[in-house]
């Protein structure tokens, strides 16, 4: 499936842009958005920034929040449906640190 991901770094990028990553369906069957981001980071683009430096992966710490198809969600809990296109953005109103990482709330 195709995943569109928000990219931005203040001071370098004039404005935000989107990258589209093609992730094989079998790699993310029954998966979460965090699994997809890990797949992209490990196999396609290691420069992608998304919250994972101190993450529980089971909806406990609540720190991996981002916007999935326009709605706030935890990356580690948001499920992927390969039939529905996926657009990922940082949560609004907190300021962007880089790519999907927002200023800590």
């Amino acid at each position, binding site marked *: 499936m195709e995943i569109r991901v928000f990219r931005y770094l203040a001071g370098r990028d004039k404005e935000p842009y989107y990258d589209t990553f093609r992730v094989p369906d079998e790699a993310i069957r029954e998966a979460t958005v965090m699994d997809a981001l890990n797949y992209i980071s490990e196999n396609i683009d*290691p420069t992608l920034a998304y919250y994972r430096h101190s993450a529980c992966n*089971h909806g*406990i710490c*609540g720190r991996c929040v981002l916007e999935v198809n326009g709605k706030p969600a*935890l990356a580690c809990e948001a499920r992927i449906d390969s039939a529905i296109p996926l657009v990922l953005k940082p949560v609004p109103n907190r300021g962007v640190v880089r790519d999907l990482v927002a200023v*800590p709330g």
Partner: protein
Amino acid sequence: MIDRQTDILIIGGSGAGISAAIAAVEKGSRVTLVSKGRIGKAGNVQMAGGSFSIDGKNAKELGYRTANDKVTPDVVFDNLVKEGYYLNDQNLVRQFVEESPRVAYELVQFGEKVGQKFAFLPPGKWFSVGRAWAAGLKAAAAAHPQIDILEDCLITHLLRSEKRVIGAAGYHIYTGEEIRVIARAVVIASGGYQVFSLQNTVTDMTGDGPAMAYRAGAKLADMEFVLCFPTALSPLRLRGSIYPYLIQVLMGKWGMPPVVRDKNGREILTPSEVYELVRGSKMEKLTACYYWGREIFAGNGTEAGGIWFDYSSYPQKKREEIVQRYIDYMSTWHRRGYYMGDDIQEVYRRILTGGYLEVGLGCEYSNGGIVVNEKMETGVEGLYAAGEATSGVFGAMRAGDGLIEMLVQGNRAGISAADYASGSEDIQETEIQYSCEREAMGKAGGADDPSYCAGTPGEIMEQCAGHDGISTVEARRKLEEIADNGFSFIRSGERIAKSRKELEQFAGQILPNMTIKEKSRTYNLELLDYHAVHNLYLCLKLGLEAADMRKESRGSHIRVDFPQVDHEHFLHRMVFGRTCDGHSVETVTPPAFKFALPKGSDADIISYLFNEEHNYLRPKMR
């Protein structure tokens, strides 16, 4: 640059770090605590799933009427040493047993004050959930506002003068800004090392503490012992959840243990006398590794490397009754149908409809780490350690609670560091100068890992700029593959040797050539993984070497080629120290003031438990 000068620097923001910080400020020290994550959301406290215990006698004295006072501190001591296969440092066990009632009770008090629920169960334990303990810790930290806290910062190396540790340095993960903290004493409380692909811990467990302490001259021991236990493999979204263990233990206690099957549907039996012996204790983790792990090792596991839980042989009515009881019980702490933040209704549905659950053995804990004494001193002046970053209290098998270890050792480390700091000489400008000029003393990987330098973000990016290897992110996955193959829950000389060879190639070809493509320091995961890969590499290297040397089985080190628990030749700890040309390894007999160490051997880790000479008390003390 963030530049601080203080009395005590604490590295780590979970149970051990917060406990140390509180103890030190209560003794009047100025404290800076640096956490890789955020207080209350960092480290493994929040991941805890079941209960934590103290002895029943003290629990009764604390006012818990249902406590079983026959389970005295002596009995707990006895169990910990025997379940640790006598490899424990008995001085540390004594400290653990004696100091746990007070610190555990304090945490329960803080948790209850902020509305968390803890169910007291005999003989002396509180059942709850990690989030509740994390909330208690956060409240305890908040009650001590004089603690100076830096969150989301990675400490990369210790600063040391000729004779002592005088602080540490690192950078802020979000901004890349450099950090330096000069301190009279440093407490490492940053957790263990997690080198496998299937893990049920937070992502923080990258071996930073043991690795930086070792580079600065501390010793590491017991690196071959890691603890794995039943962990979800599927569906992928639940991978790493520990719901299978809780289901196994709780539903088992209520008369519905899973029928465990291999990939061909053949039943994997745990002998009933063994199940009866370990039922409900942490030893159930060990027997899962032993009986199921050997089948997985032999190639009878599922494609994802696990086994199946099958409940279809239980009558429908019983399944419904037990599942309902489980859901009701857990809903005190979790949203109905959830475990932690995970929706596990699919799991209940599979149990009720006769579907199978795929379960693996995921890594939870590293017994190995920094050698400390009962004051949490490391042998390097000014350097203390606490919690999973240390080694010794649990010996060859972590039969006690990791959470209690964090609390008792953190508290003690804070007290010891404060005592030391109040009597130590002021840090001299010449010492700071020395540490800057000779930062290599704690900064460079040395002969064990010559390509590593815990430099500033800028230095590391410059170093990696000319490389043409794989990314640090991908390198971390390769390291996990090597660990999965030869260092896992069941081992053999052949697989250990193969992994050691692969690791040598990894060190020769991958480590020195890893790339960091992103040039910005801002939330740079490649930069973060650069440190993680090197720190985990060091832990795995020493762990594999110790596993190779330990030609026996003991606790959670289980070898198919050497099943015997060989007290005659291997009842010693392997202690690693850094030298100019690599490292030394000493074999050290653990201090034993209460029990004489056993002689002879046991046929395997299971018959050890039944050997009457060891007089193993747990089963008599439920």
